[in-house]
């Protein structure tokens, strides 16, 4: 499939300057989380419901052929017809035949993502049946307005969220050829009147399905407007167009979806209408002035378009857990800034990248998958627990395998990152020159080099005295009779940008009577390459690190960077899935890895040092995405701060929202990164704190750079520094 040539940077800029959209999205992003939680107030455990939905969907993916066969048999037994379309073209031909056989002239549609995915309307509107052009109307209010406007939906559930009432009124006026005032109730009543006419004169109704039940052949439609009820009631032909992922085995499984979908999607305990249609039903039509009853014709078309392949893919089958509630967009720091159009396809946001890739458009995936910064916010609320960033990583790796990497990345990873000698030498040269831009265009893919990052924040300086050069001095303070030995994995940022924090880490550990060693053969954790889908380079550095730490033979491996910790602990073992020897070594290595703050909090607790102390200077804390949602660590750093003498801990608004750094993203998409940073700075300012604490060096770099330029009187400190100051 071809991709249009697009200038993503320009499109992003344009969206960031669209005040109407910015206003709508930021208000929505503010209100959504609270409204969602409120709708769940009368539910015992959200998590239990999510697990149940995930398990049911995974079971279905594992048995997809059987479930689809049962569904088909049940519909046929009730007099409906079932077709299976392998792709969009197949579906279009099949549908055209149905139109011809039934002499269909006018079609009404209720929302169906599957038909948008294959651009069905455009096709239908170009067809003739019995010598007449087909007349097709969307009946969902938002979709109808967008069709009139010739625009694409920007959100799966709220397609027109990017428009205001004045813009909507313009589209009404255009469709009706009369001046329509921008009065919302008036517009609603106008839509009711003209769309009612469409329902009553339509020959065919096309719907999607939120679920299809194999046990009895029913399809379920979850809507608020009720248009789907009219689409399935008034026309004499009903066509259901649905993807295989909508199938569920049992009637009772529908409850597993509808207890979550409305709450997550629209913050309602239930939408106005949840309708189940099972087999052909009666329709009344006027013939020669007399009403007669007949059986409506029902057709169900199951669309494959890459879905069956995904169902059989051990990793990608998790996409089946998606119920298209769009809540992952609602909480996504990137989506809520740029809106849905930038993603350029029907499915937007992180899940959109995945679906677009799975549905066969890997090139488009390659283009917009890097708009996911892996913050995992979506994973924490997704009703089906779809691990969006992990699936994106997987697809990226496949993309790299299929298409290879761009030349600069390839050089950066294969030739430099995997060669510790060259890599560290380059970093040292960088520290002397302090001019990363000069080091060539491939360099920005390496950690620490942040070309184009100076607007609104300062560049971090590369230290000429990294941790590895200080270690012989620091090791002298190791306890003579230690309770254990800790090997320190510094990661590039602590080692070369924040070596003072590295020193703090060592001091805090030594104070706990722990001996600290620093295996010098350690290198970058490999995340920059892994994040770009380069698993070969990732494996190479993983092996170097594992070997280096095996030799050190320590009791624990301490990491002060949550991204490194996550990579060492989880990703390494996954990388060597097909290599028994290295997998075992990676697992043994990973089992020793401990994130610094959670480890220290545990030790302090044991030693009775974790009791809150009376306040003093105000301090707030920023949760790193990887720390909070990747590692699940958020209470421990707070406890450490509350126990630290002379500090009064205060929370900031949206404490766990991404600061905009996210690896290479921060400089590749600085247009997006800066608004995120500025929002963070505002939230810090509003607490009145004089210090912001972090437990992640990447956040420290981003927020620190912003503070330096915009709020120099607020300090940023790693938790390790705060603890070390109080020893």
């Amino acid at each position: 499939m071809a991709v249009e040539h697009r200038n993503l940077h320009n499109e992003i800029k344009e969206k960031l300057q669209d005040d109407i959209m910015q206003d709508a999205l930021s208000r929505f992003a503010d209100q959504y989380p609270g409204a969602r939680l409120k709708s769940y107030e009368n539910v015992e455990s959200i998590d239990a419901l999510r697990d149940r939905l995930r398990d049911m969907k995974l079971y279905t993916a594992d048995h997809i052929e059987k479930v689809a066969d049962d569904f088909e048999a049940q519909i046929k037994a009730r007099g409906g017809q079932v077709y299976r379309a392998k792709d969009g073209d197949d579906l279009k031909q099949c549908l055209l035949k149905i139109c011809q056989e039934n002499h269909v002239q006018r079609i009404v549609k209720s929302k169906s993502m599957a038909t948008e995915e294959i651009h069905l309307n455009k096709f239908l509107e170009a067809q003739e049946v019995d010598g007449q052009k087909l007349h097709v109307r969307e009946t969902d209010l938002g979709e109808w307005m967008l069709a009139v406007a010739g625009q694409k939906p920007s959100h799966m559930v709220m397609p027109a969220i990017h428009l205001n009432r004045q813009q909507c009124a313009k589209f009404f006026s255009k469709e009706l050829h009369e001046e329509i005032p921008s009065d919302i109730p008036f517009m609603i009543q106008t839509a009711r009147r003209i769309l009612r006419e469409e329902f009553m004169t339509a020959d065919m109704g096309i719907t999607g399905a939120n679920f299809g039940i194999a046990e009895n052949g029913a399809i379920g439609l979850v809507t608020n407007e009720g248009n789907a009820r009219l689409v399935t009631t008034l026309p004499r032909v009903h066509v259901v167009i649905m993807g295989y992922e909508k199938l569920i085995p049992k009637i009772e499984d529908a409850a597993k979806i509808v207890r979550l979908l409305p709450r997550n999607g629209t913050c309602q305990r239930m939408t106005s209408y949840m309708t189940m249609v099972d087999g052909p039903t009666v329709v009344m039509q006027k013939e020669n002035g007399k009403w007669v009853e007949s059986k409506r014709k029902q057709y169900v078309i199951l669309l494959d378009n890459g879905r069956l392949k995904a169902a059989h893919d051990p990793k990608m089958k998790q996409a089946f857990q998606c119920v298209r509630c769009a809540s992952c967009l609602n909480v996504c720091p990137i989506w809520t800034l740029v809106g849905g159009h930038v993603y350029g396809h029907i499915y937007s946001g992180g899940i959109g990248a995945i679906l677009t890739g799975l549905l066969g458009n890997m090139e488009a995936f390659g283009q917009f998958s890097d708009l996911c910064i892996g913050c995992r916010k979506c994973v924490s609320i997704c009703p089906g627990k779809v691990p969006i960033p992990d699936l994106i990583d997987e697809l990226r790796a496949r993309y790299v395998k299929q298409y290879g990497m761009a030349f600069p990345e390839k050089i950066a990873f294969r030739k430099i990152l995997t060669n510790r000698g060259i890599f560290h030498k380059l970093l040292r040269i960088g520290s002397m020159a302090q001019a990363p831009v000069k080091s060539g265009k491939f360099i920005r893919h390496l950690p620490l080099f942040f070309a184009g990052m100076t607007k609104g924040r300062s560049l971090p300086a590369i230290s000429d005295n990294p941790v590895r050069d200080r270690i012989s001095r620091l090791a002298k303070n190791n306890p003579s009779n230690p309770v254990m030995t800790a090997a320190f994995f510094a990661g590039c940022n602590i080692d070369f940008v924040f070596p003072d924090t590295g020193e703090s880490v060592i001091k805090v550990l030594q104070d706990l009577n722990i001996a600290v060693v620093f295996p010098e053969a350690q290198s970058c954790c490999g995340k920059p390459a892994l994040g770009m889908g380069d698993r070969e380079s990732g494996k190479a550095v993983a092996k170097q690190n594992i070997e280096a730490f095996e030799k050190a033979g320590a009791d624990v491996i301490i990491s002060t960077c949550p991204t490194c910790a996550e990579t060492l602990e989880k990703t390494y073992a996954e990388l060597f899935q097909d290599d028994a020897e290295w997998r075992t070594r990676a697992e043994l290595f990973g089992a020793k890895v401990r994130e610094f703050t959670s480890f220290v909090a545990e030790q302090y607790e044991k030693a009775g040092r974790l009791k809150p102390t009376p306040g003093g200077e105000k301090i707030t804390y920023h949760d790193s995405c990887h720390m909070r949602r990747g590692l699940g660590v958020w209470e421990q750093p707070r406890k450490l701060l509350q126990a630290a003498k002379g500090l009064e801990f205060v929370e900031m608004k949206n404490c766990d929202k991404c600061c905009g750094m996210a690896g290479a993203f921060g400089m590749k998409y600085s247009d997006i990164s800066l608004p995120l940073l500025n929002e963070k700075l505002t939230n810090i300012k509003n607490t009145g704190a004089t210090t912001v604490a972090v437990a992640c060096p990447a956040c420290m770099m981003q927020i620190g750079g912003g503070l330096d330029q915009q709020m120099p009187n607020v300090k940023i400190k790693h938790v390790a520094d705060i603890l070390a100051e109080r020893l």
Partner: protein
Amino acid sequence: MEKVCQNWPGEAFDDTLVNPNSWKEFEENAKAAAAEIYRLPDMKAAKAKVEELLQELEVNKTVAVGGDEYPALAKLFSDLKAEGKEIYTDKFEIAEEVPTADLGISTAEFCIGETGSLCVDNYSYEARVTSMMPITNLVFVNANYTTKDVDTAFQVISKVFDKGYMGFVTGPSRTADIERVLSLGVHGPNRLIIFAMESGLERGSN
């Protein structure tokens, strides 16, 4: 009238699943979803309330279903007709008149506490157009038939749902597609009025 199940209480309900216990939660949640609820002791009270509504809403034309299942409703409809109200209950008449009717009277099988939903059996064409097309929908339901949550509702449904058309109705038709401003009545009714009957809504012996 064609239904998914001709006798929900007999074939699908049992006391552990369907009972009066979840009334309060149902009432709260249905109101939160913008439904209007009247809990009424008997059909006499219902008739008085209907008459009040017909006046208040300035109803000219009513379409109504459920009379063949509930004798008390059949009586209510025929009484209203006798009083000179324009009310249609025959399915072909409903098909003809519904586009210009301003009130649709229909029935629901039970109430769902967790969500404030009515479980409706709309297999018949006339039940569907009656509840969807007029701007106001008045629904009769037995106040003693409530389920705790959506799971129990589906346990009930799965006993009898073999084919047809059914689902949940939770408040009136709504949209937030323009500026996320909640607007009612975009395609279906803009008022959903529930008459929850403490007695009098017993089924006939058909």
